[in-house]
C-alpha cells in the first residue's frame, strides 16, 4: 500500500505536507514547553537546545545498544565504530518484530524524558537563584558547552560524524511513505496531548500562579506561593517534554548528529515561534510555530529554483529574514499575533448559578452580601 502521489509544479505535495506536519508537530511540542517556561513563568531559557539535544542523544545512543544486546548482535566491543554493520542487522530484525520496535521506541522516549528532567533539575538550581539576565547568559553558555561536548565526545553519539539509529518504524514500511505517515500519527498525537496538557495548566489555578510569579514575585510570595518550587517544577516538566521531542525527532530522522543541535536551530527558531505567535498564549504559539515552519519549509522547497540566480546560499537569507522578523515583531507588535489574554475565569452567569444552588447552605449565604439576581444584572451594563 502506497501513499498516493500528488504532484504540483514539480513538487510532491503530499510528501511535502507529511514532512511539514511532522516537523511542525515537533516544533510545536518544543515551543509549547518554551512558552510554559518563558511565556507563563518568565524563565528566559536561552539554552533550549541543550534539553532537546540531550533527549536526542540519550535515545539515539542507548536504543541501538540495547537492541544489539537483545538481538545478540556482535558489536566487537565498539558500538560506534562498527555501527555501519550493526544498524542494518538491527533494522532487519526490527522489520519482523513490531513489539521490540515499540519497546525500543518507548525505552528511548522514556529515557529521554528522564535525562531531560534531570538536566532540568540541574538547570533549576541557578534558575531560581539568578536574575533573568544572568540566567540567560548561564543557560546560553551551558547549551554552547553541551553542543561542544556532543561534537567532541566520541562514545556517546560518535562526535562530529554522528551515528545512525535503529529504525523503530521500519515495520510500517509497507509501501512508499507509509512509515512517515506512521511517524506523523505518533508525533501528531503526542503534540496534541502536549497542547492540551499545557493549555490545561495555563487555565488552572497553577497557570494563574505562574503568571503571578512572573509578574510580581514578591506579591506571589507574600500570598504564600512557593515560587522556587513552582519554577523548578516548570523547568523539569518542560525539559522532560522537550527531550522527548528530541528523541522522537531522532527516531524520525533515523540518525543523530551533533551538528543538528545548534543555538540557531533549537533555541533561536523556537524563540521566534513563541514571540511571533504570542508569548503566554498557547493558541498563538501554535500559530507562530505553524507560520514559522511553513515559511521555513517553503523556502527550503523553492530555494533550489533561485540558487542559480543568487550568488550565495539562500540559507543565509533565512537567518537575516527571521532575525529581522523577530525584531520587527518585538518593536511593533510585542504581544505577537495573538497576544496574551487575561486569565479565563467563569462568566458571571455561571458564578451566579453556582451561588444560587449553594445559597441553601448557611455558610455561603452568610458570606454573600449581594443577592445572586443583582450579580446577574451587573453583567449587562446599560
Amino acid at each position: 500500500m502506497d501513499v498516493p502521489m500528488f504532484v504540483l509544479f514539480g513538487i510532491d505535495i503530499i510528501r511535502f505536507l507529511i514532512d511539514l506536519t511532522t516537523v511542525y508537530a515537533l516544533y510545536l511540542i518544543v515551543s509549547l514547553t518554551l512558552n510554559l517556561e518563558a511565556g507563563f513563568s518568565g524563565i528566559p531559557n536561552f539554552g533550549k537546545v541543550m534539553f532537546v539535544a540531550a533527549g536526542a542523544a540519550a535515545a539515539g545512543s542507548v536504543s541501538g545498544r540495547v537492541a544489539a544486546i537483545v538481538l545478540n548482535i556482535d558489536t566487537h566491543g565498539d558500538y560506534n565504530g562498527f555501527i555501519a554493520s550493526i544498524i542494518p542487522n538491527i533494522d532487519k530484525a526490527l522489520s519482523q518484530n513490531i513489539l521490540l520496535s515499540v519497546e525500543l521506541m518507548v525505552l528511548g522516549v522514556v529515557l529521554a524524558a528522564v535525562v531531560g528532567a534531570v538536566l532540568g533539575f540541574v538547570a533549576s538550581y541557578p534558575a531560581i537563584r539568578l536574575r533573568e539576565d544572568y540566567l540567560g547568559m548561564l543557560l546560553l553558555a551551558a547549551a554552547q558547552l553541551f553542543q561542544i561536548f556532543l561534537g567532541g565526545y566520541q562514545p556517546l553519539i560518535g562526535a562530529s560524524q554522528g551515528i545512525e539509529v535503529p529504525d523503530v518504524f521500519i515495520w510500517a514500511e509497507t509501501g512508499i511513505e507509509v512509515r512517515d505517515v506512521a511517524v506523523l500519527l505518533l508525533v501528531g498525537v503526542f503534540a496534541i496531548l502536549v497542547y492540551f496538557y499545557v493549555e490545561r495548566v495555563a487555565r488552572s489555578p497553577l497557570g494563574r500562579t505562574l503568571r503571578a510569579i512572573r509578574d510580581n514575585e514578591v506579591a506571589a510570595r507574600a500570598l504564600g506561593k512557593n515560587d522556587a518550587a513552582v519554577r523548578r517544577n516548570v523547568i523539569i516538566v518542560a525539559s522532560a517534554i522537550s527531550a522527548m521531542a528530541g528523541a522522537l525527532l531522532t527516531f524520525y530522522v533515523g540518525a543523530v548528529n551533533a551538528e543538528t543541535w545548534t543555538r540557531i536551530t533549537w533555541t533561536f527558531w523556537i524563540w521566534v515561534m513563541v514571540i511571533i505567535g504570542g508569548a503566554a498564549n498557547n493558541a498563538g504559539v501554535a500559530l507562530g510555530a505553524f507560520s514559522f515552519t511553513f515559511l521555513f519549509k517553503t523556502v527550503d522547497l523553492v530555494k533550489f529554483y533561485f540558487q542559480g540566480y543568487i550568488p550565495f546560499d539562500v540559507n543565509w537569507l533565512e537567518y537575516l529574514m527571521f532575525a529581522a522578523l523577530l525584531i520587527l515583531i518585538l518593536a511593533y507588535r510585542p504581544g505577537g499575533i495573538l497576544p496574551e489574554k487575561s486569565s479565563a475565569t467563569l462568566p458571571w452567569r455561571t458564578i451566579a448559578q453556582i451561588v444560587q444552588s449553594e445559597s441553601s447552605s448557611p455558610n455561603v449565604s452568610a458570606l454573600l452580601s449581594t443577592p445572586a439576581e443583582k450579580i446577574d444584572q451587573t453583567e449587562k451594563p446599560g
Partner: protein
Amino acid sequence: MLSPHPNRSQRTRQRILVLAVLAIIIVFIAELVVDYFLRPVIPPYLLDTIVYASLFGLMAMGLTLTYITTKVPNFAYGSFVTVGIYTSYSLLRVNHINPYVSAPLAFVLGGFSSVAMYLIVLRLLARRGSSLVALMISTLAIDIAFIGIFGIYSDYLTSLYRLIDSKYFIALSATPGTDFSLYGLPGLLYVAPISLAAIAAGLYLLLTKTRFGIAMRASVENPSLARILGIDVERTYVFAWWLAGGFAALSGTYYSLWLPGGTSAGSNLIVEVFAASVLGGLASIYGAALGGLIVGASEILLTQAGAELFGSWVEIYQKGVPLVIMVVTLLLFPHGLVSVSWRGVPHSAAQSFRSMLTRLTRTFRARGGN
C-alpha cells in the same frame, strides 16, 4: 566602580585592578623571556595561554562596556569579533594587507557595526518599552543576522575571488610573512598583551583624566543626574558602544592570526567572554580585563594540567573551564571579583610596613643615642 566621584577606597580598588592587569601581563612577558633563555623549546600551550588571556581580556572589557551602558547582556558581541576576523582575512587574501596593518580598520568597522546595532535595534526597542528578556532575545537575533551576513559575504568572496576557504580557514599566520617574529617567538605574543595593557591604561586615563571620560562615567552611574548636568548621555553611550565593538574587532584580528576562523567563530566564543565579564563583576571594565586574563589563562592551563594527569580526552572539555568559572562566580560571589573586599589588603600591608619602619627607626635612634 564607575562612580563619577569615586571615594578613596573606590579609587584604590580601581588602581589595584589596573595594576593587577598590568602585573599579570608583565608576569606573562617575564615568563616568556625566562622560558626563552632557560628552556630549549617553549611548550606551545604556554604561548596559547598568553594569547588567549590577552584576547579574552580585550573582549571582556568591550562586553562589559556594552553591559554597563545598556544593562542588557549582548549575545551579539561575538559577531563583532567575527567582523575583525573577516576584515583581516579578506584584506590579507585579496589585497595582501598584513593583519597588523588592517587592525585599525577592523577596529573602526567593528565599532560601526556595534553602534549600528545599538542605534537601530536596541534603542528602538528600549524606547518602545521592551522588557529585558525581549532585549536579550533581540541581541540573539542580531547575532543570527550577523552570521547570515558573514555567510553571504563569505559566499561572495568565494564566487568573486575564488577563495575556497572563506567559510572556514586556518590561522592566518600560516601564510608566510604574515606574522613577524621577535627573538624567535611569534609577534602576536608581544602584540596581544601589550595591546591589552595599553588599552586598559588608556581607558583608565580617559575615564579619570579627561572631561569626556568623566562624563561617560557619570552617564553610566546615574543617567538622569548626568542629563541634568548637561551631559549628552546618548553620545557617551554611542561612544562606549563604538569602543566596545572596536575592542572586539581588534581582538578578532589577533584571533584570526592565531586560531582558525569562520562565519560563527566569534559567536562561539560567547562562553569565555561572558565568563570573563561575569568574573569581573559585569560592572567594572578593569575587573573584566582581569577576568579575561584569568579565564583565558585557566582555560588553557587547567586543560593542559588535566590532559597531563588524566589523558588527552580532557581536551574536549576545554570550554567547560570558563563555564565552571562562570557558574561558581554567579553562585558564590555574583558581583564578581570587584565585590571581594580588597580595601583592607593594601591598607593593612602599608600599615604594617609603616609600623615596621617606625620600629626600626626607633631602634636605630636608640642605638645612636647610646
